[in-house]
Each structure stands twice: as structure tokens, then as C-alpha cells.
């Protein structure tokens, strides 16, 4: 019986997967409009006669969202689908590290659009982070705080995951190298919402702790959007003159603006992309996005878009083969020229740098003030 099952399994393995090749897509925003736009862009860029590539989203699995367990289930499901040649997502470092062994076991290349933890570099060859890592971001922040903001005392508020801890740690080190005083890190709970009474107090206490010994003139917030918005509001109430710099995990979105309210005006944020910088075709694409989706494209979404387009290019170049696609991706910038995306050039050669910007939010949009 086992022999028979083995033969059947071998026959099943030998069979070609049915349907066109697919890009696995795990996207925390759960925005169907964005996904539809992304699919149209991939199809629009398809050369004549080239194979069609589809996007298989994590939401297809209908396994729920918003937790590490869900990310594990999504990755497991996508890795088991022979049509999925490459995966884009998840967005966070902790989630990416969580699913890395799953993709590694299945041989699926995983492009991490916004994860910045240095730990991703050691997660395995399949895991390829697209943005600059947390140490680079920390250096940019430190330089900005030093030269632009003339910071004297800086506090870092962060969530206790690989992203928050990593950015906080490297920022402290970079600031100390510049002779800037750094107070103790303040941890905030991930998922807390200042609209909930109990959590609101927690944010106030965190700000209180940050201001306890000596009030900082610059604060770096390394959290997600919701926590970042709540902290911004709390900080501005407690320290009206403090200047706030948001890490890349905070997206100055509608959610942010709702919670931060007036405190949002004047904050600085670290961005991987903005429509006002970079290539003209990127600006065109951003305009098309706003026209078709009905809102401006976020920096993280631009990274997702670049990840998906890069994946499609790889499949079209070397075919629907996971190993070949991985090899091609690893050679971008070395064996092949850098890939030119919306957010700039991608190169995975050692020492290659990615752009990062710091913008000031004026209540409607950002003005890039440093890069």
C-alpha cells in the first residue's frame, strides 16, 4: 500500500501544476482595491506573447488576519500551492521571520517589502528584504536629529518586537556616537489603541515615563501606525514643543490622522518612497493609483508594488521555476543590472544602498526634508 501511495505521490509530483504561475501575496492592509491595482499593473506590463501571471492573495485562504498565527497559516497555504513561484509579504519583520522557515522548506523566494530587521538577513536565502535595514534607518535618523533638529535629548518609544527593538537599539547607538543624550527606551504595547480607555492610560503613562527625568526635545517612535498615532497625540499633549520622528512602521494614513488629530501636523516620518521624489514614471503611476484606488499610494504600498513587479519580471525572465527565480533575484545587481522600480533601484549586491527619505507632514501631505 505504501509503495502504491509512493507511486501515486510521485506521479502527482511529476504532474505540471495547473493554471498560470502565481505570485503569493500577503498584505496586512487587506485592501482589495490595492490588490486589484497591483494585478492590473502586472498584466499591463506583460510583454506580448509572455505568460500571464496571477496574484494569489492570503485573503483567498479566508483564515483570518491580524496575528502571527494567521501569517503562519497563510504562508503554509501559499507554499503548498505549486502555482506560487514567489511570495511578496508579509510586511513586518517579526512576521517575516516567523514564516521564513516555511518558505525556506518549500523553496519559495519571499520578498519582504517593508521588514527592516537585520535578523532578516540571517533568516535564510529565500528571505529577501527590499528596504534598507534598521541600522541604516537609525543612522539616517540620527543624522537628521543631529543636523536638522539639533537634538539634545532623544527618547525612543517602541513596540517590543524585532522591528521596534532593532530600530531603538541602533538609533540609541547612532545617537550616542553623535554625542546626543538618549534616555531609556520606553516600551509600548503593540495593538493598544488610545480610543480604548484602558489603553489610553497606558499611552499617557508611557509618555509620562519618557518625560520623567528630563523632557526630550526629539522623540523617535518605532511602532505601528495605531500606536504611533496614539503616542504622537499623547506626546503633544504632554510636551507641546517636542519634535516627533516616526519610524517607517508608522504610516501617516487616515487612521493616523484620526487618532493623532492636530498633533499630526509637523511630525517627521521616515519614508521609503514619496510621489514627489524619484522617477517621472513613478509619479505617473502614483497618479494612476490615486485615480483608480481613490487615495494616495502609501510608501509601504509602493514597496509592495515594486516587490510584485520584481517577482513578475523574474518569472517572465527565467520561467515558472522557484529555484531559477530565486537565483535570478539573488543576482539582481550582480549578474543582472539593478531593477528599476517605483521606489528606486533595487540591487542585492553586498553594500548596495536603498534610498530613505524624511518628510515633514503639513496636515495634507509630506514635504521631503532629508534623504
Amino acid at each position, binding site marked *: 500500500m505504501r509503495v502504491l501511495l509512493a507511486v501515486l505521490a510521485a506521479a502527482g509530483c511529476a504532474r505540471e501544476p495547473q493554471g498560470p504561475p502565481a505570485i503569493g501575496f500577503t498584505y496586512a492592509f487587506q485592501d482589495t482595491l490595492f490588490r486589484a491595482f497591483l494585478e492590473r499593473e502586472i498584466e499591463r506590463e506583460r510583454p506580448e506573447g509572455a505568460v500571464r501571471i496571477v496574484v494569489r492573495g492570503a485573503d483567498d485562504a479566508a483564515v483570518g488576519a491580524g*496575528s502571527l498565527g494567521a501569517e503562519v497559516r497563510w504562508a503554509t497555504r501559499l507554499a503548498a500551492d505549486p502555482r506560487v513561484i514567489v511570495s511578496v509579504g508579509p510586511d513586518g519583520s517579526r512576521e517575516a521571520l516567523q514564516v521564513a522557515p516555511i518558505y525556506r522548506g518549500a523553496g519559495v523566494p519571499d520578498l519582504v517589502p517593508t521588514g527592516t530587521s537585520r535578523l532578516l538577513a540571517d533568516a535564510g536565502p529565500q528571505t529577501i528584504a527590499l528596504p534598507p535595514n534598521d541600522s541604516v534607518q537609525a543612522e539616517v535618523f540620527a543624522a537628521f536629529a543631529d543636523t536638522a533638529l539639533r537634538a539634545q535629548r532623544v527618547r525612543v518609544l517602541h513596540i517590543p518586537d524585532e522591528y521596534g527593538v532593532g530600530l531603538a537599539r541602533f538609533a540609541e547607538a547612532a545617537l550616542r556616537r553623535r554625542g546626543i543624550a538618549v534616555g531609556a527606551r520606553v*516600551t509600548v504595547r*503593540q495593538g493598544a489603541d488610545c480610543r480604548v480607555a*484602558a489603553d489610553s492610560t*497606558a499611552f499617557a503613562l508611557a509618555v509620562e515615563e519618557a518625560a520623567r527625568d528630563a523632557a526630550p526635545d526629539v522623540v523617535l517612535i518605532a511602532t505601528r501606525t495605531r500606536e504611533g498615532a496614539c503616542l504622537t497625540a499623547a506626546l503633544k499633549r504632554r510636551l507641546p514643543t517636542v519634535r516627533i520622528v516616526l519610524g517607517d512602521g508608522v504610516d501617516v494614513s487616515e487612521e493616523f490622522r484620526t487618532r493623532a488629530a492636530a498633533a499630526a501636523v509637523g511630525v517627521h516620518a521616515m519614508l521609503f518612497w514619496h510621489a514627489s521624489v524619484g522617477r517621472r514614471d513613478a509619479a505617473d503611476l502614483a497618479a494612476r493609483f490615486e485615480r483608480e484606488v481613490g487615495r494616495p499610494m502609501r510608501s509601504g504600498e509602493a514597496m509592495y508594488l515594486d516587490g510584485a513587479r520584481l517577482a513578475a519580471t523574474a518569472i517572465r525572465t527565467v520561467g515558472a521555476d522557484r529555484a531559477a527565480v530565486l537565483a535570478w533575484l539573488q543576482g539582481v545587481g550582480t549578474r543582472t543590472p539593478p531593477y528599476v522600480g517605483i521606489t528606486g533601484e533595487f540591487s542585492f549586491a553586498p553594500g548596495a544602498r536603498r534610498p530613505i527619505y524624511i518628510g515633514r507632514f503639513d496636515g495634507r501631505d509630506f514635504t521631503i526634508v532629508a534623504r
Partner: protein
Amino acid sequence: MSAIGRPATLRARLILLGALSILYVIVVTVQLGSVLVPAATAMEGRARDQLSEHDRIAGDLKRMTEARREVARWVPPIRDTVGRESLAAIRTEMDRLLAEGVAMRGALERADVPLEMRVLLAEALEQETALGVHVVEAIRAVQLGRPADGVEPLRASGLRSDSSARLLSLAQRRALAIAVDEQGTLLRDLERLERWASLWVVVGLVLFAWGVWMLRDQLLRPLAAIEGAVRRIRDGDLDTVLAVPRADELGRLADLVNDMRAMLRARAEDETARREGLTERFGRILDESSNEIGIFDARSLRALQLNRGARAHLGYAPEEVAALSLPQLLRAIDVGVLHELVARLRTGQQERLILTTRQTRKDGSDYPVELTVRLSRDRDAELLIIVGEDAGARERVRELDRALREHSYREQQRLEREPVGATLASIASMAAQALQVPQVGIWREKGGAHHCIGTSGPPGPELAARALPDAPWHLTVTVPATARGDLLLVAEAPAPDRVWSAEERTFLRAVGALAARAVDADERRALEQALARAQRMDSIGQLAGGIAHDFNNILTAILGNLEIARSGLDPNDGRAGAIADAEEAARRAADLTRQLLTFARHQRVEQRVIDLNALTRDADRMLRRLVGPEVEIDTRLDPALRAVRAAPGQIEQVLLNLVVNARDATPRGGRISIATRNRLVAGTPGDGAGDVPPGDYVELSVRDTGSGMPADVLERVFEPFFTTKEPGAGTGLGLAVCYGIVRQAGGDIVVQSAPGEGTVFRVLLPAVDAPVEPLDRAPAPGQARGSETILVAEDEPAIRTLVARALGARGYRVLHAADGQQALDVAAGLAEAPHLLLTDVVMPRLGGPELAVALRHRWPTLPVLLMSGYTADALREGREVPESAFLAKPFTADQLSLRVREVLDGRYRRETPRPGATRAIPG
């Protein structure tokens, strides 16, 4: 039968098979054990390792749970009594716990962690991290002096932590359950496999024992019974019935053995009667043999049977055979010697005897015979089988063979002096006589058709009309010996009962070889003769052509000057008559040279597609006047005659010459038959088609009933100046001209004649499938005048002067030069092109063709008229000077002016002649 006859071997093989099977079971069992046990051990080890791993993870979870409980215990002190230092210590501890939580990712990364467990661990990590942050927040609240703000959320969180604790506990239990279940399933599968293996081994042993019992009781025993029965049948016992009361294959085999026994018994009962019938049939078969065959009892030497051939030779009736004995037939051999010879066969000293002796007929006469004697042993008798052969017949064949060889020598001699037909008739007659048949025919096969080329009967014209006899009783042999096809020899037997022996067949084949050699020799000789004649005729033609060329130049000058001289005299002047006589003599000389050129095929002619019938009809009246009333002309023209390509004037001359020749052969009157017919030439010898390749031809024959010609005359009849007429009665060029004309037209002329049998000339011309062309009409001499400028180049002064005078007298402006180079100089001084270049072909310094080519560089459309006394020049210049005209020497002033006018008017067709093509010169 032989396989069943070795039960011991079969039994031994079965025992061996059983032993091997047991060994196999043991080996399989041992092998299974050696594979299963280590596999099970390894799987168990892996299961235990995984259980340990899960225990370790569960331990991590347990420690986290305990830490969470420890934190829960800290909550009241945090609220009430814990100091700043203690809180710092607690915070440090919490950081450690968080770090441990992060480290749990290492466990999650292990690939063999089940998905469900991986998810549970991820969720636990998430919650524990959150719990830790709650504690930190609580501590922070206490430190900030707002314990209520921190403890209450922590308490609420603690409640969630309770649920988290339950979740962790559940995760631990489920993780363990998953691991245990997985490994337990594996172990259960392993045990189940072992149980099944053992069961199948036991079942296999039981089945094997059952099989051994089956083999012994159900197969070996019945086979032994069948073997015994078959042995008894072999030994002659046809009464015992085999008893195997079964319905399976062995039962059916036993039934078949019983059926076989019954059948053998029935056959044995019929054997005697069958033998008698067999003897009778055998006797009939013996009778069919052409040899003498006798069967005698070896002990008594009495005759048992004589076949028809033997009885016929010996003269006995069938009923008399039983009373005969061998000594009675072989009286030349002593009886004792006969018995001694039989003893030699009986003892095996000799396998057969060959006796060359004489056999005595019933009437007492004897004849030579060669006997082959063999001994055949029957069950209860010894038989002498004697086959006799008539030694006389063999001797006759040998004699015939000797005669054949002698005949071969004679025929070789005959072939040297007689036509091959006579030789073949002689060979066929010899064969017919030897084979004692009325007729032997020799045939040649080609393309599926058969032509009789010789018979044993008298040769005659009906030979060709004979049809190949194909009666099955005739003897036919094929001899693939000649270059032009196989020979068939047919010996025609008078009656269907003729039986041909191998010797006769061999003999006829040898006759065929002889005939083939004769045919080959004849063909070879004919080819040699034809080659010699062609060489001789070609040599004569070369000589005649050369002489004629020189004569032509001379005669041109003579004729031209005589014509000019005569034109200047009063017709009543006596010198004018002398000049006229000289002109007549010169014309005859020119006619002679023209005939010589015709024979030598150097006469340039224009060939056209013509109808021989029309040409013959047109000439009929003239021919009748020519032969006179004593000779009757009989014309038989084939109405379906095909066209030929030839010069009509020349063919008319051939007909005229042949009829004149026939008239001269019938001085006392007779008949001349002129006939035309279509003819297919197949290339067979003796077909009277001369030396033409096979194909479709038109034959024009002229037959006379005259005196005929002997062979030595026939041999030279076409040579020029060869004549049997009185001196002065003929030039000897008539038939030579015919020969030249016909050969130039691609045909041949053959003659058949014998003294007293008349003569027939057959002209064969290739038939063509093209429409007949009308004849050209020459322009009237009176129109041949003009005023154009003509550049004349001729190295012979007499001719140059003649041409200049003749053309000048007819109004032309003549520029003349002594050779080509001088002509070029003259032309260089001309402002415009002359209207015609008239030039000799061969000249010193620069020849006519070279001159024409040079002038045409300057005036590409310059008309050119070449003149020469040698037609070969015309053939050459036609290739070298395209679109040129030609005038053969000798010519008269009228002929010259006519040709010049034709060329100037463009009536003379200018074309590049094909190699070998010729053009007529009107006038």
C-alpha cells in the same frame, strides 16, 4: 512420452522445488526481520527524539506559564509595597522573559514542527509578549505614582492571562497529543506490518504443504499410472484399459491414451489389407518411372514385381512376372555369383551393387544394361530393389555428343563460306535427327518477340512467318549467348506422351550453344566486313573529294573564260563551235566531280521533309522513257508511307541510278519492281536492313529480274569507278553516288543478289513525323542584275578576273583583292560599307571567314557570300561566319550572278547552319 517416462526425475525436481521454497520462506522471513526490526528501531528512535523535542517546547511553555504566575503574584506587592529597586529587578526579569519569548522563534523555525503547533506557539508568543508589556506598564504606573492606572489594566490583563494560561496549557497538551498521536500511529503501523508479515509467512507455509500434497497425490500418482499404460502400449499390449476416473486434465489425458490404444488396435487390424493396397499403388507408381525397376526376393531371387518399363524391354506380360527369377533375366551371370553378390549386400559389405551386364529378353535376345541393386529388409523378408538403365541409349547419347562436337567443327568450317542461315539449318537438322523428332527450330528472342532464324526443315521465306511452337510436350531450352538476344531451341515432339530425359535436354542445350557460337561468329564477321567496307569507302571518298576540289577550281576558270570568250565571238565564227565543244567537255568534267563529291558526302545539300511516294510518281514517266518498252516497270507504293528527311533532287537521282542499273541488268527485257513501305528495323541479323540503328524507316526498293551478281561483285558494287560494263558504257559512279546520298541522309542501301536470281536494292531512310515541305523555286537568270558595290577577295587570279568580269558585265561595281589582308586595305579606304563581300574561303595571309569577321566589326550587317571548291569549307565556315551564304565551285557566270542577286535581295536564307546540316545550291 519421454518426459512422462522419467517420474524419478520429476519427483526429484519437485522435492528440490519444495526445498527451495522452504529456503525462500526462511530467507524472506529473515530478510523481513532484518529490515523491519532496524526500521522499527530507527522509527522508534525518531519518535522518541520528536517526543523529547516536544517535551522541551512544552517545558518552555511551562516555564513561561510559571513566570506569568510569578508576575501575577507580584501584582499585589506592586500595588502596595514594592520599592523602586524591587521594581527595577522585576523589570529586568521581565526583559529576560521577553527575550526568552523571542528566543522561542528558534523552536518555531524547526521544519518538523507541525503546522498546528507552530501556529499555537506563535500565538502564545504574541500573548506572552503582550502580557510582559502589561507588567511593564504596571510597574511604570507605580513608579510614576499612579499605581491605580497600571494595576487595573494589569489585573484586566491578568484575567486575559488566565485565558492565556489556559491557551498555553491547551497548546502544551495539544502539542503533546499531536506528537504522541503521530508517533503512535507510526508504531501501530509498524506493529500491524509485522503481524501481517508473520501471518503471510504462516499462510505461505500452509499453502506450500498443501501444494506438496497436491503434487504427490493429484499429479505424480496419476502420471505414473499413465506412464505404465503407455509403456504397455509401446510393448504391443493393446488390450489393457487405463483407469483414471477423474474429470480434470489428467483424466482427459488418460482418456486420450485409451483412445490412442483403441485407434492403434483398429489400425493394426487394418494393416494387412492396407499393405496389400499399398503394394498395388506402389506398383502403379513404379510403372510411371521411365527406368526399368524390379523387385526380387533376396533369398529365392524370384521376381515380385517388374514395372512397365522393365516388362516392355523384357517382353513379359504382367501376369508372367510372378514366374520369373533373377537368374532367368541375367543369364550372363552365374547363379552362385548372384547369391554371393546378395550376401555382400546382406552383410553390409557393400551398400549397393552396380552391374554392367546384358539382360535377356523373353524372346532370348539380350541387350546391354546397367543395374543398380539395393537390399531392403522388411519385417520378415529381404527384397532386392533393382533399377536398370538402357546402356544402349546412354551410349547413343554419347555418340551424339561426339557427333555434336564433330558437327561443331564442320559448322565452323561451313560458316566461313556459307551464310549463317545454312549453318543454323544444318545444326537444327543434326539435332532433330539425334533426338528423333520431326523438327527442331532455332529462335531468337528480343523484346518479347521471337524470330525463327533456323530450322531442321528447308530454309525459305516462310521461316520468318513461323510462330513459336509452345506445346507443353515440346522440349525448349534457352541459351543466353548472343549479344542481340537469347536463343530458344525447340524440339517438336510428335505426340504428347514424349518424355524428355535429362541427357536429351543437355544435348539440346549443347546444340543451342553451338548455334549461338555460329550466330555470334556471323555477326562478328558481318561487323568486320561492314567496318572494312566503311573504311574502304571512306578512304575512297577522301581521295575523290580532294581531287574534285582541285578540279573544281580549274574547271571554274575554264568554264568562265570559255563563256567570256564565246560571248565575244560571232556565232558563225568557227572558233565559237570549238569553244562550245570545250565548254561541253568542261561541264561533263564538272558533272563528274560533282558526282564524286556526292559519293564522298562532301556535296552540300538542303534536306527537306519529302514524300517518297510523290517523288516516285513524279519520276515515273521519265523512268519509263528511260528503260524503254522492253522492260516493264511495276510500281507498288504504300499509301500509308511515312515521310523522310532528304534532299529531293538527290533521292530522285538515287531512284534514277538504281532504275538505270536495273535496266542495264536486263538487256533482254524483264521487270523492274519499284516499291515503298514502312519498315521497323529491330536490328536482328539477316534482316536485310544494312548498318542502321533499330528504329522506324521507309524502304524504297528496286528489284529486277536480271542476271544477278556474284558475291565478289556484290562486295564492291558501291565502290566508285567499279563497273562490270563494257569500257565507255558507264562511269562506275552511279551506285557510288547512291551510296553517298543515302548515307548522307542517315540511311543505308543494301543489295541482295545471286547469279540468275535477279537483284534487289533496298534504300532505307529514317522515317520522320513532320509535314512535307514544298520545294524552293530558283529566280530567273534574267533578273540577276544590279548596281551595288561588291568587294571580291580571291587568291586565284583566273577566278578573280572571271568574277570581276561577270559581275561588272551585269552592272555591279566590283572592288577586288588578291587575299583577305588586301581586301581589308581596300575596305579601309571606303567611306561606307560595300553591299556584299564575296570571298574565297582559303587564301594566303588572311582567309575568307577571318576577313568577314573583321569587316563585320565595322559593318555588322555586311552580307557575306563565301565561295569554295571544297564543301568541307562550307561546313566549317558556316560555323565560323554566322549568317553567311555559300557558292560552290565550279560555277558559271549565271550561277554566280543568280546567287549574288539572291544574297543582295535577302532571298537566300541566312542562318547559322547546324553541324552536319547542308544547303542546296540552286542551279
